[in-house]
């Protein structure tokens, strides 16, 4: 018991939680933006992979770290555009298009990586983002190490949460996104293009998702591995529902998940000798389901989610 409190009260633990949460924050914010506009984006797992590969590859080819971030975002936007074209004007099933995009983005990333680097026996590395040591702030007692020894991408993620909330609730575009996810005809009857709003949103959301992948190869680690996304994208889909499609709750959800994961790793070394490790690994998923049952069920989801819109058709 004491041990558990010790863990929860240590700044390093919370620093780890935030670090683990960072790719999830990007992912859930991206997924949330897409779904707010009425488009479920199951391409996320592939978009993560594409972002991880493209961002890393760009840096490796000499683009510089922020150049890599930009390239990752563009890669995400590219696959987002495919998903957007398939699901918005063409109105195809969002489930199957998303899974198709995941397949496509993943295999294309792998294929490009392998074809470009056929002879590596150990993954080539880049100089990744380093934690920012912000002079005064990082010296603060608990908060300092937890919050201010993170890499720039973590701060970007936190900023994106704020920016997304502001965008959704305070700007004309945000209103349009919310409306198009609820009732597309409300948007069309006000002279806006449903397709433009939805496609733009999906493309932008996918670009944000890709940053989650980029974080893995450019911040959490410094090389690209096959399969390294490891289901993180799917988690974000779950977190989106958990968050009731709200940016603030999305941040909390991602942090909770990160905390579970960080906690799980620490607890495993404590009692791992008599409890199977898999039980710990299950914990975040089980708790997510439990949270859904007790917290987030019956959230008012975007009513037009999954429903394609065709102009002039009934």
């Amino acid at each position, binding site marked *: 018991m004491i041990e558990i409190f010790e863990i929860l009260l240590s700044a390093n633990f919370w620093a780890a939680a935030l670090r683990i949460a960072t790719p999830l924050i990007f992912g859930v914010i991206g997924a949330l933006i897409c779904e707010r506009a009425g488009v479920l984006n199951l391409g996320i797992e592939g978009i993560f992979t594409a972002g991880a590969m493209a961002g890393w590859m760009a840096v490796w080819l000499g683009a510089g770290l922020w150049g890599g971030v930009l390239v990752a975002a563009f890669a995400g936007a590219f696959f987002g555009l495919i998903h957007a074209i398939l699901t918005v004007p063409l109105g195809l099933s969002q489930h199957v298009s998303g899974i198709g995009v995941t397949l496509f983005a993943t295999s294309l990333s792998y294929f490009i990586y392998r074809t470009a680097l056929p002879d590596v*026996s*150990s993954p080539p590395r880049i100089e990744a983002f380093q934690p920012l040591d912000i002079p005064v702030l990082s010296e603060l007692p608990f908060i300092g190490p937890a919050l201010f020894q993170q890499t720039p991408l973590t701060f970007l993620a936190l900023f994106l949460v704020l920016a997304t909330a502001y965008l959704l609730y305070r700007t004309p575009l945000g209103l349009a996104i919310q409306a198009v996810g609820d009732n597309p005809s409300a948007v069309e009857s006000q002279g806006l293009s449903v397709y433009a709003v939805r496609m733009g949103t999906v493309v932008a959301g996918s670009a944000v998702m890709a940053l989650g992948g980029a974080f893995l190869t450019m911040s959490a680690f410094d090389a690209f591995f096959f399969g390294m996304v490891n289901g993180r994208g799917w988690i974000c889909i779950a977190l989106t529902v958990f968050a009731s499609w709200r940016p603030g709750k999305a941040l909390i959800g991602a942090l909770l998940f990160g905390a579970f994961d960080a906690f799980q790793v620490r607890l495993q*070394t404590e009692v791992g*000798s008599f409890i199977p490790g898999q039980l710990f690994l299950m914990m975040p998923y089980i708790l997510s389901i439990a949270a859904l049952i007790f917290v987030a069920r019956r959230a008012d989801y975007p009513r037009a989610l999954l429903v394609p819109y065709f102009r002039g058709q009934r």
Partner: protein
Amino acid sequence: ADPIKVAAIYTVPVEQQWVSRIDKALKAAQDRGEITYTFSENVANTDYERVMREYAEQGMDLVVGEAFAVERAARKVAAEYPDTAFLMGSSFGPAKPNFAVFDNWIHEPSYLSGMIAGSSTKSNVIGMVGGYAIPEVNRLMNAFMEGATSVNPDVKFLVTFINSWYDPPKAKEAAFAMVDKGADILYAERFGVSDAAKEKEILAIGNVIDTAGDYPGTILSSALWHMEPTIDRAVTAVVDGSFEPADYGPFSFMSYGGGSFVVDEGLADADAVSAAKAKEQEILDGLFRVNVNDSEPKSTM
């Protein structure tokens, strides 16, 4: 003579430490002009048998691979293609007429790197991050732990498996957690652990491949695996027409040069190094046998 045709089937990408050693040995043979080499990586177990058959059908002279999760099927296929030699990673014995086996028997150097770690730790806490708790991993970890306790009975171990072969960010987090718990040496079974050690400015123990160049000043000691003795023997046997369904496992032992132990003498205590070197000699001379223990290692804290 014409080079013989060799194909390899890997269930993981070639970057994975284990497979990279096989790949390296085969590429060297190819560069020497002894073989032509092609491989399929990341082959799902469901597809493994088909891939084996396809290579056999293509008239490969030697097929190298990992039979661990497809033991039965692999042996069946081999039996149906007696003209092709199969050299497969396996926990079981060889099978007639053409199924030879190997494994990464580098528990010996692991024991030695454990000795170095045991005498180098100040906090008496060593963190170990593994992928999955499979025998090939457990064996090395157990030998390492045994080596460490042999020189330092007070040393304690933290063990975590991340349930993935390639999730360096996750391995890194697991390692960070151990540092938080007081570990001052990390056993790096997976990519990501040495990065954590480097970032926290502590030491790491390498496994299978030598990453000292990537982490200068961080890798205290490593247990390396060399597939060349195994591969070269198998290739020669195929060329000679003398390929036997033998157990190539021992060629991973130190005495054949299949395993080796390296230590950064700038980082390790000189006494510890000489103790380990003495033990190394005993092993090479056959005077000391490192225990083989395939059971899952557990934290001792």
